[in-house]
């Protein structure tokens, strides 16, 4: 029954999406309101259908309905309820169902927005074109789950029990958070793509287009950022190698669109302020969407091996065709509409915010290309030369560290530069204190014995950029305090809320700097060692002493575990007891470890149980110390807060009438004309 309902809902969703797409395009061509109304209703209908399919799959999983093929694949009666619920995205078909649900939810949001936008400007074809494009993307994903990746196939006779979700998913509750966050970011990039295609099809960019598309990009960008940090955290907490990033193809697949989307968020500001870089900006957002499709293809078709990759499946060719259509279609559109994308402004001076943005964009694009080349090279080499190669991690580090360092530098310098034309005198004033602080920190660290040049450079640049950001806040707060007589904190809050986008952006930059420091420190000063320790014996590890007390086995409903007890001391005083363990799942050939760690902001001590003797007299334990690794998660939190601050709707004072807004725009244009 569940299988029938689920499959019927996906098929109906597919039909509605196809109908809605056609209706939206007809509405855009003819301007007839009833077609557009039909398309909007179809869009909401798609969301309803996919939501029903999703809920049906959850019901089938929870009630252990093994007549549904996907439940037979990932379900088991022994799995606890929580893991049963999240097992929906533990294999290929279910993950595409989650994908389709998020896409349909974004479609419903776009419908809601388009109703308002259309009421404001009924004749504007951009809105229906954008909705039509997004519905086409829906068609593709619904096609996948209705046919080659259908999770609702009927099994007759139904088996009595299944194997349960894959062991890595069951090993940490964090799998309930990381994939949905990442998907919400990843899938959401389809919306700005659709808005861009809508504008190109309509042949013009409205003046409010950059603002609009920026907001629609910032939402998925925030989720993607949090998803990437959450994924690193999961990798660190679960995989037992003490690292958080391995340049694995799937990690790269999530990182590449993040890079291009970040570049886009910056270049669209230049477009908004100065009317420049239009073609480049549109290319970036189209490229971001292409990279999400490419990433899905790489990780879901089985062409690349990785921890995350699912089994070989038949959906590869579908993705290749879709990728080809999107790529060719976008390029054709860009070429066809190049006249609408002509630049209105020009560069006035080498030393200006615009230049900083352009350099930032080049760096992000280069970064994305470095990652893309490293990820695709094994495929290319095998196709062209027939050799099996892999690209080593050092390639990614060597290439990305210089780019990342320049970006850390720009994170502070960019905001300090004024638009149009900066002057050295102004910069000298702004740079003084951050420069002194950075120099002071650099000397202090060098004296304290930090010898790694790249790490030292990262710390110094991060302090410099951080100082510049603080200066931006401090100067504005000081001016406001003098003007209004308010206290420091109210003035700071007033400044920050007066321009949420700007100051939210600076908070995000601060988070990125904190992450950069965490990465540099934990990658450079990490130490690790492993020993086989007899029971009761103590092993020295740097400042720590680790005593192996005992090892025992436990039965749990869905798995067995072997737990080692250790006592960790620091210079003779007992700090804590840690219990690294190995878990044996019926679905996994090898045991999956759960490392134990003592974490704080200064450094993490991380213990992994590697092996033990059958009599319990010896355990092999690996210990890792990573300084400042906690800063990465802290920085991720700051990035999320900053983005939320920027997205938070500004308090509506007096909504400017169109006439008043026109006056303001005219005044600004006039000021700019005089300035020129």
């Amino acid at each position: 029954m569940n299988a029938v309902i689920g499959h019927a809902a996906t098929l109906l969703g597919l039909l509605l999406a196809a109908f809605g797409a056609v209706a939206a395009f007809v509405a855009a061509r003819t301007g007839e309101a009833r077609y557009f109304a039909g398309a909007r209703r179809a869009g909401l209908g798609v969301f309803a259908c996919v939501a029903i399919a999703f809920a049906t799959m959850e019901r089938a999983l929870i009630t252990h309905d093994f007549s549904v093929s996907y439940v037979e694949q990932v379900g088991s009666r022994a799995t606890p309820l929580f893991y049963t619920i999240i097992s929906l995205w533990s294999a290929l078909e279910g993950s595409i169902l989650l994908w389709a649900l998020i896409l349909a939810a974004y479609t419903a949001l776009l419908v809601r927005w388009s109703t308002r936008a259309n009421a404001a400007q009924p004749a504007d074809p951009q809105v229906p074109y954008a909705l039509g494009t997004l519905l086409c993307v829906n068609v593709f994903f619904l096609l996948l789950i209705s046919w080659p990746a259908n999770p609702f196939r009927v099994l007759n006779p139904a088996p009595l029990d299944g194997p349960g979700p894959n062991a890595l998913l069951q090993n940490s509750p964090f799998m309930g958070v990381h994939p949905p966050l990442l998907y919400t970011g990843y899938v959401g990039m389809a919306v700005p793509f659709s808005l861009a295609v809508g504008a190109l099809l309509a042949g013009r960019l409205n003046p409010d287009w950059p603002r609009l598309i920026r907001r629609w990009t910032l939402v998925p960008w925030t989720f993607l950022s949090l998803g990437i940090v959450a994924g690193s955290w999961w990798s660190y907490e679960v995989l037992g190698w003490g690292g958080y990033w391995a340049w694995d193809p799937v990690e790269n697949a999530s990182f590449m669109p993040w890079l291009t989307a970040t570049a886009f968020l910056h270049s669209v500001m230049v477009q908004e302020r100065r009317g420049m870089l239009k073609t480049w900006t549109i290319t970036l957002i189209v490229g971001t969407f292409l990279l999400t499709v490419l990433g899905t293809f790489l990780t879901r078709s089985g062409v690349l091996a990785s921890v995350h990759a699912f089994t070989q499946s038949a959906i590869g060719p579908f993705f290749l065709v879709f990728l080809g259509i999107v790529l060719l279609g976008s390029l054709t559109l860009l070429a066809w509409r190049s006249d609408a994308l002509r630049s209105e402004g020009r560069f006035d001076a080498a030393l200006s915010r615009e230049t900083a943005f352009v350099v930032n964009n080049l760096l992000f694009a280069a970064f994305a290309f470095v990652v893309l080349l490293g990820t695709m090279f094994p495929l290319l080499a095998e196709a062209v030369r027939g050799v099996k190669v892999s690209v080593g991690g050092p390639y990614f580090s060597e290439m990305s560290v210089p780019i990342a360092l320049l970006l850390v530098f720009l994170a502070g310098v960019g905001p300090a530069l004024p638009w149009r034309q900066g002057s050295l005198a102004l910069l000298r004033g702004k740079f003084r204190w951050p420069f002194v602080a950075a120099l002071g920190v650099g000397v202090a660290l060098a004296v304290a014995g930090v010898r790694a040049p790249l790490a030292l450079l990262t710390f110094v640049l991060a302090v410099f950029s951080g100082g510049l950001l603080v200066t931006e806040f401090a100067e504005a707060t000081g001016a406001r305090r003098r003007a209004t007589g308010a206290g420091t904190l109210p003035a700071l809050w007033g400044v920050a809320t007066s321009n949420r986008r700007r100051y939210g952006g600076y908070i995000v930059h601060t988070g990125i700097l904190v992450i950069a420091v965490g990465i540099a420190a934990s990658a450079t000063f990490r130490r690790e060692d492993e020993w086989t320790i007899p029971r009761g014996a103590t092993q020295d590890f740097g400042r720590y002493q680790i005593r192996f007390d005992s090892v025992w086995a436990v039965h749990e409903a869905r798995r067995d575990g072997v737990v080692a007890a250790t006592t960790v001391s620091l210079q003779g005083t007992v700090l804590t007891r840690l219990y690294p363990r190995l878990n044996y799942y019926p679905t996994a050939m090898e045991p999956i470890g759960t490392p134990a760690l003592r974490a704080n902001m200064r450094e993490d001590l991380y213990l992994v149980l590697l092996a033990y003797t059958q009599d319990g007299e010896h355990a092999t334990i690996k210990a890792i110390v990573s300084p400042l690794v906690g800063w990465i998660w802290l920085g991720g939190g700051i990035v999320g807060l900053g983005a939320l601050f920027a997205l938070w709707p500004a308090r509506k004072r007096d909504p400017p009438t169109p006439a008043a807004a026109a006056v303001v725009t005219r005044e600004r244009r006039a000021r700019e004309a005089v300035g020129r």
Partner: protein
Amino acid sequence: MRRGGGKAGLVIGAAVVLLVFAYLLWGGIGNNLVYFLTPTELLAKGASAYGANVRLGGIVEGGTVHWDAQRHELRFRLIDGDDHTVEVVSTGVPPQMFSEGIGAVVEGVWTPEGVFRSHNLMVKHSNEYRAPPPGAKPAEYYRQLFRKQQS
């Protein structure tokens, strides 16, 4: 970036930057490529393969595994379908599933002493999430630890 006239300069500048970037990329990729070889392919390369980071894949030959608990060093021979074998020395504890007759991939360098020094040993099982084959009972290994706790 001054008005007019600077366009040619800009194009040349961009071209130079692109060329330098491409050169760095090419070098970066070239120095970090890890080839995947079988024992036969590695032996055929002979001395030219010394020192380069490669991945070597094969079957762990029966009766050749020796674990030195003191030095945390594992020695074994990898064999392929053409009966060529390579001696491997790997540091660190092997994965729990490591055993004679299993497929393994080692990453490391081939040295003139005729030993492959590996820093990364991976046991090959065609799919990460496949259940153990019938007969394989990882639970056997820790059964004694249950009993211990009960007593």
